[in-house]
């Protein structure tokens, strides 16, 4: 169960709060009707809770004034982008103010000389990527939700994507942040200059799930787009062969830009909906992509295909052009949507393990599915060991839902025990609060609490998320 919290009675009445907010932001952008609030009560997770008010500021100054109000009145406050969060990070469990950044969606500057882009948090990830690509540059982090997710949300969650093995996660591409602190103070940390003395606050803020401040401006790192890309698709009779190929490629000294895998369950779902021509009798497909300078790439692609063959591949294809490349990718990009059409709901576990543990962990995940009578599809970032078992179910079936939660906890325990972690790119949010004890002890959690306290002593910033309140072993009944 999520952590339940109710606002104290002596806190400001919702009506007065709304009136005060209307003095800060154009009243048109202060939302409080029942329907409006219902629309902001959920994200892409299974959690729900209704805020007191939703506000859509247009500037840093407005955000600072909203924050000052929240600070004075001790009202919970949390930021929200497109709501694609998968762990309940954007659910206002304690009510209060939801700050929706959709109006702060301007690309302020693309500075190719300094390899940076300066953006407001509401900019859609793909929009920025499309813009910089026109100038021959690339912003590397590419979460699957890039068509809808915002860059502010990516920063809040430290989003990953298929390219992380080679290029790192969002935090490796953030150079500077403008932050509104808990008391309304606006600070700038980092900047276009790549090295700034002092604590790495940007490093700490990225992935802090809105618990340390509200980000109002971001300086992103751009890179020159690679000259060449080669994409391959390999089809396997067993998942193990696919997973072993992944380790073997890296052991040969090749670090591909992407190593993505899908199992039979997901391939079937893809074929039922978007039809990209996957063989339904195969156990797994692996998408391998190399990028960089064209010199030596043909040789490396040949070597990769040879490694596939050594690992019993049934068939391996190399895309000859951009059109073929898009076909190879279509299935992967549409996988989550396709699974959504098989059963009404799915829960995506985001456990991550050291790459070499993939074969054994995957077979145990399948076991867990059998044990709880739940279909589990696997579509995952194999290169960085980031699993995404999709547990498919019907949310309306209470019994099934309970089994889903149990299975998910067990899968995360499995990942933690294999030397991995409970979340690779989706965050802890509400959903994995209890599971934090699989990887942290109380001393570790105390440190996190101290950090949070330094930023937000009154706990108004996205309360109830990321760090469990009570000793978490207790909560899990361990």
């Amino acid at each position, binding site marked *: 169960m999520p952590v339940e919290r109710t606002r104290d009675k002596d806190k400001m009445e919702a009506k007065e709060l709304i009136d005060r907010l209307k003095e800060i932001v154009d009243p048109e952008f202060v939302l409080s009707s029942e329907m409006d609030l219902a629309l902001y009560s959920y994200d892409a997770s299974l959690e729900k809770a209704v805020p007191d008010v939703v506000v859509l500021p247009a500037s840093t100054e407005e955000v600072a004034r909203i924050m000052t109000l929240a600070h004075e009145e001790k009202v919970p406050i949390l930021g929200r982008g497109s709501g694609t969060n998968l762990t309940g990070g954007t659910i206002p469990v304690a009510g209060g103010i939801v700050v929706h950044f959709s109006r702060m969606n301007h690309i302020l500057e693309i500075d190719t000389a300094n390899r940076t882009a300066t953006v407001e948090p509401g900019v859609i990830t793909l929009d920025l990527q499309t813009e910089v690509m026109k100038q021959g540059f690339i912003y590397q982090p590419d979460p699957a939700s890039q068509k809808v997710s915002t860059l502010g949300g990516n920063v809040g969650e430290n989003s990953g994507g298929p390219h992380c093995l080679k290029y790192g996660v969002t935090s*490796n591409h953030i150079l500077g942040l403008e932050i509104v602190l808990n008391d309304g103070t606006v600070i700038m940390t980092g900047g276009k200059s790549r090295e700034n003395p*002092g604590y790495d606050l940007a490093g700490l803020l990225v992935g802090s799930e809105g618990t340390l401040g509200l980000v109002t401006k971001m300086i992103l790192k751009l890179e020159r787009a690679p000259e060449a890309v080669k994409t391959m698709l390999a089809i396997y009779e067993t998942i193990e062969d696919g997973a072993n190929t992944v380790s073997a490629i890296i052991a040969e000294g090749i670090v591909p830009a992407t190593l993505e895998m899908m199992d039979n369950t997901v391939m079937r779902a893809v074929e039922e909906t978007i039809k990209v021509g996957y063989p339904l009798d195969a156990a797994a497909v692996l998408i391998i992509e190399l990028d960089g300078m064209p*010199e030596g790439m043909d040789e490396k692609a040949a070597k990769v295909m040879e490694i596939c063959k050594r690992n019993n591949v049934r068939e391996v294809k190399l895309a000859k052009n951009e059109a073929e490349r898009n076909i190879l990718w279509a299935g992967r990009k549409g996988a989550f949507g396709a699974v959504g059409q098989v059963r009404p709901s799915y829960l995506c576990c985001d456990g991550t393990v050291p790459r*070499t543990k993939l074969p054994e962990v995957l077979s145990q995940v399948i076991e867990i599915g059998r044990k709880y009578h739940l279909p589990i599809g696997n579509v995952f970032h194999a290169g960085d060991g980031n699993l995404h078992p999709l547990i498919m179910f019907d949310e309306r079936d209470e019994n099934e839902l309970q089994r889903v939660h149990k299975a998910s906890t067990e899968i995360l325990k499995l990942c933690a025990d294999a030397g991995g*972690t409970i*979340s690779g790119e989706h965050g*802890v949010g509400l959903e994995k609060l209890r599971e934090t004890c699989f990887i942290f002890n109380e001393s570790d959690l105390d440190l996190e609490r101290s950090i949070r306290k*330094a930023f937000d002593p009154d706990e108004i910033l996205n309360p109830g998320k990321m760090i469990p309140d009570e000793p978490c072993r207790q909560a899990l009944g361990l």
Partner: protein
Amino acid sequence: MKDFADKLQALLDKGDRDAVKTDEGVLEKYQVDGMTPKALVFPKNTKQVADVVKLANQEGWAIVPWGSGSKMAMGNPPDRLDLVVCTSRMNHMLDVDTDNLTITVEAGVKFRDIQARLATEEDRCYLPLEDLKTEANEFVCSDRSHSGCFLPLDPVCAGTATIGGIMAAASTGPRRLLYNMPRDIILGVRFVGPKGDIRGSGGKTVKNVSGYDVSKLMVGSMGSLGILCELTLKLLPLPESMETLLLSFGSFDEASAFASAVIETQLLPAAVEVMNKEAFEHLGSDWSLEVPDEGYVVAVALEAFKEAVHRMKNEMVKMGKQNGRKDHDSLGEYDHGAFWLAVSELSRKLEKSYSGIIRAKLNYRISEWKNIVAPASKILSENGLPCAVTAHAGSGICQLNVLMDRNEKTAMDNAVGAMEKVLDLSVQAGGNTVILDAPAEIKPRLKIWGKTGSDFVVMKRLKEELDPAHIMSPGRFVAGL
């Protein structure tokens, strides 16, 4: 004093005669900015570090952590100093996992030992080491039957520095152009906080968003938030081919035109280092390159697949010609390693020759580099100060080494004024200037950490919350944290 040492000794193993040192001769070697500690502690593991820090916190003793000492000249002079905690006995490689491209080591393990451990069966190693034996002990090891890996860092003093010191100081070098910063390769950390608690964060996976990214907070925190004990870092496969191209030019304008042209291409060099003649000559005489007076050298590191290195070399040689290079040379794999090791050891070499050296690291927007390197050099020459200048083109970093002796009083005074101007210059270019080394007596007159930004308010809050007794490296960090 006796009591002090007894308390410490009692904590650690009583029979362990190397655990605590209080003899003056030894203590003097561990001075921090001229201050001598009351005792030295050499813990054997994380637990012992925790015990020592817990006691220090109770007693209010100020601690400064120490690796191999290569970065101890950094920072403000400490407000006070009781204990130096030395990590040299914490030299275990806990987990060498080349299949997953990660390594977990204790903080006292030397950078060179890590690279030696990751060498191939054929002894290909990222550092040019003739002796691949390591001082470090291993708990979990894998054999050397992999294709070779390396730790993609390019720290100052690569030959002696410990990994704990490198990460605490966030030490970087020219090859950050390709491999990024220490913050980008750290995956997990275990450290002892100022109250003596063992804290952990992160793990072995590249992707990890479970909890705050405390590893990044600790990198570059200069021992002000705790003592790093165990670090998990990302490895990369050893580059298939490694070569260096050296080109000399008659002027900074020509050298910078070439370097800029290289940076603008889609080629992926590992480093493009521009240095003045003074700096190049101090590297040693192993490289035969004709450099005109007032001339500059551009050194380009190429670390990639064979075919890519071949192409980069060809194109850059051509570009060098177009930009009026005077002389050029290319170095094969072993010399390549030796050259960049010499670059990383340059500061140490200069420190030995110039007792009053001031070393400054300027950062700024990368596009501004031409507007920094020449004007900064000019400020120094106008003040009659000889200077070895190196700049990482494409990364926005320039290092100035002002070559003075400690007894040159006027030069020192001039240098203090010049550094103020250099700071203004870098601030105007969107950056800052950090003094990496200066004689203790003039440190108080210099702005060691440059200008403080609006984010200092949060740094202060963090320090107060995590180290309320101010025992961890008190006063040494930014704005006296």
